[in-house]
């Protein structure tokens, strides 16, 4: 059998998750078979996946989708009038009036228009053109497509590099490596609440030039897993840096709707760029990504996202279109994007309920964030920066040297060892910081804070007990 495969695929770092998931699955089976454990069920908050964590989908999204899927429901009085009207309008823009047909780029025309209107509203008037939007099977897919244009071959120093945050979203790094790119890490500053510092970007870029040809800068704002939300000044610094160093900006803004700190608000790269005026606003190339998977919608399983392109060379745009035209975004996900971009408005039948649901969800997460922060920082050997936005807590663990030695003895990363023990003894499935890269000698765990109240409370209780025992055992 052939063993030879693509070196880019081989270079993708395997996820720690894979090993942990094997054990998690066994534990689930053991529990089902009645094996005695100190817990009766597993808590899994490993991904930013609110519905898996028991959060209910937004009713309006699902009603519209159901009516689109099964148009007989358009005559069903059980569904609110605005739901049926919305579904009708969307179906009219699908070929043959069916979600079963392919969509032309950029996607269902109405959805692309709604997205561009949404962006214009969000950016308080900075114009957006539907022709610069491309809907894809998830934002990660769009990112990979753009990377596949930016990144190309050469040996060693000739390879394309992309500056990526540490800690950062592991799947994006995997995407980058899978297309043959080099990931150039820049450290976020944990002590300053995971801020992005310009000196660090400069350092990273200089270091990178020895080993590759840096072409782009990848930013995640609000941060994953850091939870940091960038200020306008910070974004301006990044834009100037990109401009001076001729880097293409990749702005992963999928958590733009989830901000929990009163003092912070989300500012898009596109808006800040536009407001900086020339020479920046008409030169710096930017791709901004958003998704139906994140925010309050949380429809991860639908796989729909989009990219908006700013200042892209029209000749290149043609090729971007060709690449995107190969992958039609799944239509159910496009329906979800439609609601995300254009939720019910005052006067529509579903408005009140939609507002109630989203507000409840937002307060739930806000309360989760408060509790998580409070409990984590009360634990010995744990320190959590404020979670300003996003979907995750990413507390630092100060692991005792004996625990680190033990992990090394077992051939595990220290925080993977911690996660494995946590899974085994407390039935809590979270991911280790090494999955997302972290500063050498520091250890973290990441878990999703978009979950039901009692799930989060249960996790905190189990984690607190475990942490105390763990520290005692290894001190």
């Amino acid at each position, binding site marked *: 059998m052939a063993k030879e495969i*693509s070196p880019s695929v081989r270079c993708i770092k395997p996820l720690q998750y894979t090993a942990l998931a094997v054990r998690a699955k066994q534990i689930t089976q053991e529990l089902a078979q009645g094996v005695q454990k100190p817990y009766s069920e597993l808590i899994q908050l490993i991904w930013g996946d609110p519905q*898996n964590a028991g959060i209910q989908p937004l009713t309006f999204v699902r009603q519209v989708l159901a009516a689109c899927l099964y148009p007989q429901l358009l005559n069903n009085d059980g569904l609110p009038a605005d739901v049926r009207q919305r579904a009708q309008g969307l179906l009219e823009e699908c070929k043959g009036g069916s979600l*079963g047909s392919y969509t032309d780029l950029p996607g269902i025309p109405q959805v692309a228009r709604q997205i561009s209107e949404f962006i214009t509203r969000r950016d308080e008037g900075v114009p957006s053109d539907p022709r610069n939007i491309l809907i894809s099977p998830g934002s990660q897919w769009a990112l990979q497509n753009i990377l596949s244009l930016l990144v*190309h071959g050469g040996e060693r120093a000739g390879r394309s590099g992309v500056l990526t945050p540490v800690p950062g979203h592991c799947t994006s790094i995997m995407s980058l490596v899978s297309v043959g790119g080099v990931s150039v890490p820049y450290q976020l500053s944990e002590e300053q609440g995971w801020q992005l510092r310009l000196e660090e970007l400069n350092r990273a870029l200089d270091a990178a030039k020895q080993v590759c040809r840096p072409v782009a800068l990848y930013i995640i704002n609000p941060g994953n897993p850091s939870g940091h939300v960038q200020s306008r000044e910070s974004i301006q610094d990044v834009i100037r840096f990109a401009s001076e160093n*001729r880097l293409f900006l990749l702005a992963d803004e999928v958590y733009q709707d989830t901000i929990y700190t009163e003092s912070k608000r989300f500012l898009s790269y596109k808006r800040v760029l536009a407001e900086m005026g020339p020479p920046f606003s008409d030169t710096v190339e930017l791709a901004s990504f958003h998704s139906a998977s994140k925010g309050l919608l949380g429809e991860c*399983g639908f796989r729909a996202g989009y990219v908006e392109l700013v200042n892209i060379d029209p000749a290149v745009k043609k090729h971007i279109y060709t690449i995107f035209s190969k992958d039609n975004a799944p239509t*159910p996900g496009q329906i979800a994007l439609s609601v995300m971009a254009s939720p019910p408005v005052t006067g529509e039948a579903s408005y009140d309920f939609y507002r109630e649901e989203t507000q409840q969800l937002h307060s739930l997460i806000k309360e989760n964030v408060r509790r998580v922060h409070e409990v984590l920082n009360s634990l010995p050997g744990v320190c959590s920066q404020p979670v300003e936005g996003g979907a995750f807590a990413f507390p630092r663990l100060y692991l005792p040297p004996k625990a680190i030695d033990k992990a090394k003895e077992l051939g595990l990363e220290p925080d993977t060892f911690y996660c494995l023990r946590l899974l085994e003894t407390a039935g809590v499935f979270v991911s280790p910081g090494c999955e997302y890269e972290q500063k050498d000698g520091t250890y973290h765990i990441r878990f999703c804070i978009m979950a039901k109240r009692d799930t989060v409370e249960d996790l905190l209780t189990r984690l607190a007990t475990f942490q105390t025992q763990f520290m005692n055992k290894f001190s």
Partner: protein
Amino acid sequence: MYCGQVQPIQFRKCLKAWHWREYEQVKYQVRAAVDGDNSRNCSSPRIDSSPLCSGRKEDAEMSQQHAVNGVLPKGKVLTLETMNPHVKKVEYAVRGPIVQRAVQLEKELREGVKKPFTEVIRANIGDAHAMGQKPITFLRQVLALCAYPPLLEDNKFPEDAKERARRILGACGGQSLGAYSASPGIECIRQDVSRYIEKRDGGIPSNPDNIYLSTGASDAIVTILKLLICGEGHSRTGVMISIPQYPLYSAALAELGAVQINYYLDEDKCWSLDLKELKRAVTEAREHCHPRVLCIINPGNPTGQVQSRECIEEVIRFAKEEKLFLMADEVYQDNVYAEGCKFHSFKKVLFEMGPEYSSTVEMASFHSTSKCYMGECGFRGGYMEVLNMDPDVKTQLTKLVSVRLCPPVPGQALLDMVVNPPRPEEPSYNTFIKERTAVLAALAEKARMTEDMFNTIPGITCNPVQGAMYTFPRVSLPQKAIDKAKEEGCVPDMYYCMRLLEEEGICLVPGSGFGQRDGTYHFRMTILPPAEKLKIVLQKIKDYHLRFTKEFS
């Protein structure tokens, strides 16, 4: 002129058209391994600018501007010069310039511009619902129930649909379609798929661990190619594809920088696959690359040919001898119409050939929810089954699919119903069978109608549409038309199809997008328009063809 109106990828089209003879040769012969510099020259805007191709000139100017304007190197980061040269070579004919022109014409019609037709008929892509095919009730009921579970209380939905929805939801994280699934797909759906394959193949075992659900079959195909393509220079991976082929393959190979090895199907023998031709292609290719993969599309796209059992056996023996990984694109497995034709899965034949083959030949087989009787393209459901893959390579495959997180869950749910349809004792069974039979019978009827009609047109010859959803008739073009096309900067069949679109509003894909023997011209047309409309379309093509031939005779 026609090319000039075409928007996005006109530049390369035109460039290639300008060198059209060269183009045909370059494209349909084995490309030199990783033709780095050579290919860059090919598509660089610096070489000779054609006055006919306004798009191309525009590009050249744009690129020059960067060099001139930039006081310092302040131009764009991402330009035609700096972008990945492999991506530059990617073309996707079924959504290419002719389709973009169709979209434009539709827009003009909506805006009230007068045209010789009132609607654009898109017979370019296998998109059944777009052509008016109605969804299968049961599939949509279950999906609606899954999407909005409070409908489970609604007594208008049949019990078996509800039961199916509960089962699918039970297998989803958080009992919701909105949660991520495992990257290879929801486990119980993978099990259902493997049971379905076992049943299809008369009991030959299928292991759910070998099943990977995907975002449509194309995602799975690209994933396998991405995994297998490696090496540099003479050891660069070569991938054998049929000519004519489905452009997904050539596009993926271009993007991944693999060497495309063409083997020609025999038009005179109903587009059948000829072993001698496979041998010729692989032997020639060994001179400059490392052939590792053989792609087969059965039933054929665009050819509509259904392979015989003997042919499949020959292909398998060939793959074993030549140590090739077999990629069997079997998305049209339920679309077989012709008397005496039957779908044989590669897996079944492989296993019936005995352990010498069944335990050694590496293979991936692909299927999709977009075709067959469902035609649910928008959901992006699909799967692949991999066989005899090295365990280490399989680990790498599992890692690679995790980069996409997971296939769309609504598509996975849909796939589950396709592999696990209503049973005879269930309330939805009768309606389901009725709807399915009607779709397939109509397709069979349209396949016949298309073949018959085309064969009455002087200058068009058409092989029987044994399966799939397309016809790929051969068109003889008068020399004057060929000259005219060259003058216009178009490949001849593109010129033919573009004129047809402009004059009759019918959107077809020229044969050059799929590949064809030098000097032959074809187009691909789907047989999907409703019978009444198809009749009109065929008549219009006939009239057009006669007119066209007369004009250039």
